[in-house]
């Protein structure tokens, strides 16, 4: 029986258990549910959980363990000369066996008979069915594939039986426990609590897992390239063309990328902070509730636009516009119509990224400014200060720590932003300070290092993980510092 079918049966069992359990509980109470400790539905849920939960756990464990066991058995059954080969070649052979096994399932008995044990014919027959093989299968592979199929079949049957038996036992046992005083509600709630805990741990465990894998890969990279050269190197030249040639490892200096990242982020903040802050002040202090209720969601829609769209906008509109503008200015000033702003430049990327960040700045600051207690405004207004004086001298200073926190969070977004810079900033890893020239960022380089077809063991690709972990640490520090500031600020008014 296939796994989805088993799951469907389990679901049906759960529904039946729920109905039966509920009815049974009501029957015990003589139709008067107030005589029961819990509401009848809880008894039904309890029976359903007891039936399905252990069965589902058994199913999951089986699905994980059985292929592991079968695979190792099959590999153990390979001829000695195959076993003597390298690990990679054994893996390749096993892959073939797997494909064969899948293919032989599709073939009808007639076809198998017809093909017999002729490897070449088997291959073409399978190819006709859409299963491509890497090479002609060797005879031992066909044999192993047959074994594999047989073992899988047995495993599947046993699993189906065990799971269903466990479900029925669970249902039966829990059914007999239903009584007046049985605390079904407490048990059900404990299961729900467990589900909540599992759900929240998944996010945390995933994060840890990602960091771990990045660390491991970065560790491999630092095994090839000294950390000192990576963190303090001033030349980025990974030498794609020469990858694989052992003599040229390339140079992986982080500094030009980091500089580009920070420079573009800085330009973006130059655009986003004033505009965002002013719009936040207008929204929170001056706008009428009616206008606010329309304008604020509109502003926040900006935050929902995918960044690739911004990148597109930068590439096709802003970049060419700035380039043409610069050539016109140059022409008027000197008579020479050469553009001094490149289409892909720090300015273009920074400007568009700044536009993207406006809603973050304004929305976060708006919340913080609105949180400044009304009493402070009243105090200032009551002394004869105008609204603008109140905002400048009382509200903004009071909100400042929170606003700084919000800006730091925004900055960490700017540093991690990828799509806009990929399209608008260029790919040249250079160290320079002219905003009209292209520069590149850490994120751009991660993309370009990973989108080649290099193998994953060369430093050219492994460096992406080192870059990733560096970026992660930087944004993590910014975020933690921002949270710290915001929290400290909250305490002031609570």
């Amino acid at each position, binding site marked *: 029986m296939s796994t989805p079918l088993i799951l469907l049966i389990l679901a049906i069992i759960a529904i039946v258990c729920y109905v039966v359990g509920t009815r049974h509980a009501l029957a015990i109470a003589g139709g008067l549910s107030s005589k029961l400790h819990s509401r009848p539905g809880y008894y039904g849920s309890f029976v359903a959980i007891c039936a399905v939960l252990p069965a589902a756990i058994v199913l999951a464990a089986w699905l994980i363990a059985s292929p592991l066991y079968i695979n190792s058995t099959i590999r153990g059954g390979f001829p000695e000369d195959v076993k003597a080969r390298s690990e990679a070649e054994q893996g390749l052979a096993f892959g073939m066996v797997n494909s064969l096994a899948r293919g032989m399932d599709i073939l009808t008995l007639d076809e198998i008979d017809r093909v017999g044990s002729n490897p070449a014919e088997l291959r073409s027959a399978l190819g006709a069915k859409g299963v491509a093989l890497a090479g002609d299968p060797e005879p031992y592979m066909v044999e192993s594939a047959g074994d594999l199929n047989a073992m899988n079949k047995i495993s599947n049957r046993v699993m189906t039986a065990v799971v269903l038996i466990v479900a029925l036992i669970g249902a039966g046992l829990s059914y007999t426990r239903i009584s007046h005083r049985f605390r079904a509600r407490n048990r059900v709630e404990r299961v729900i609590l467990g589900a909540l805990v599992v759900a929240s741990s998944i996010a945390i465990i995933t994060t840890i897992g990602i960091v771990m894998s990045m660390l491991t890969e970065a560790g491999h990279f630092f095994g090839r390239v000294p950390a000192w050269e990576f963190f303090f190197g001033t030349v980025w030249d990974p030498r794609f063309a020469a990858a694989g040639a052992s003599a040229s490892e390339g140079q992986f200096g982080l500094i030009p990328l980091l500089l580009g990242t920070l420079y573009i982020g800085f330009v973006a903040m130059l655009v986003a902070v004033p505009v965002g802050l002013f719009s936040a002040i207008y929204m929170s202090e001056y706008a009428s509730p009616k206008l606010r209720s329309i304008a604020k969601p509109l502003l926040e829609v900006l935050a929902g636009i995918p960044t690739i769209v911004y990148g597109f906008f930068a590439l096709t509109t802003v970049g060419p516009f700035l380039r043409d503008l610069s050539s016109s200015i140059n022409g008027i000033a000197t008579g020479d119509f050469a553009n001094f702003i490149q289409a892909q430049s720090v300015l273009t990327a920074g400007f568009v990224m700044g536009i993207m960040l406006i809603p973050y700045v304004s929305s976060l600051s708006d919340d913080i400014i609105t949180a400044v207690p009304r009493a402070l405004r*009243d105090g200032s207004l009551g002394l004869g200060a105008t609204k603008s004086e109140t905002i400048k*001298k009382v509200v903004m200073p009071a909100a400042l720590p929170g606003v700084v926190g919000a800006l730091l969070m925004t900055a960490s977004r700017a540093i991690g932003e990828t799509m806009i810079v990929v399209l608008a900033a260029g790919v040249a890893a250079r160290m320079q300070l002219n905003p009209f020239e292209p520069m590149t960022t850490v994120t751009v380089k991660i993309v370009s290092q990973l989108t080649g077809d290099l193998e994953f063991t060369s430093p050219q690709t492994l460096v992406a993980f080192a870059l990733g972990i560096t970026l992660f640490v930087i944004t993590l520090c910014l975020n933690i510092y921002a949270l710290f500031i915001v929290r400290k600020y909250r305490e002031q008014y609570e």
Partner: protein
Amino acid sequence: MNMLSEAAVEKALDKKMNEVAYKMIGKDVSVYYGEKRALFDVNLNVRENTVTALIGPSGCGKSTFLRTLNRMNDTIEGCRVTGKITLDEDDIYDKEIDVVELRARVGMVFQKPNPFPKSIYENIAYGPRIHGLARNKADMDQIVEASLQRAGLWAEVKDRLHEGGTGLSGGQQQRLCIARAVAVSPEVILMDEPCSALDPIATAKVEELIHELRANYTIVIVTHSMQQAARVSQRTAMFHLGQLVEENDTDKMFTNPDDQRTQDYIMGRFG
């Protein structure tokens, strides 16, 4: 009969001879919050250099009336005021009147102490700076010291003028707010339940301060405490359901009020 009318005449004459000076005059003041009417044609005059207490149960409109006196209601969305209020001779709701100037003349102290998150010195200097009352640093020092002296806080804070105002105790914070209001030398000070967030000792200090301030300022205070009204005020006005029930000398209000509702409220029968 004859005796009574004679006494009444004599009293009227007495009044005329003493010629009460009114600082603020409220005529037919009504306030609406959107559709809801919060104040009904209140006629209440505030005497100069006198403490006037506004009492009444919660939601009776006493705070609303207080806030009309320096147009703090302007900051509330959908609030509308009708009628006429004058400060000395000026109609404070006149279009010509600058609300900023008005609030400099009619200061306000709020229910909860609301010092700015700045130093003690900066809290006091805030108002004078906005209104340009000090020519130089020495002037400002002078104003800060005088205001803190007036609020009876100088001795307690003179060694830590540049520490945060929010670090003071609740009572000190409230006196800081009073000093802040005094610093712009207003003519009238409005107090909206200034002691409701304070403990009894801090309350006693603030009450003592109100007593002293009376010599230089006209004070209107909203309070929930009958005892406080009796202790600090000379005139008392009783509000109920948005109407002015009675306004009288405090002594008379608490011994022999004209209106039954005042009597009931003071005796604690409602509110």
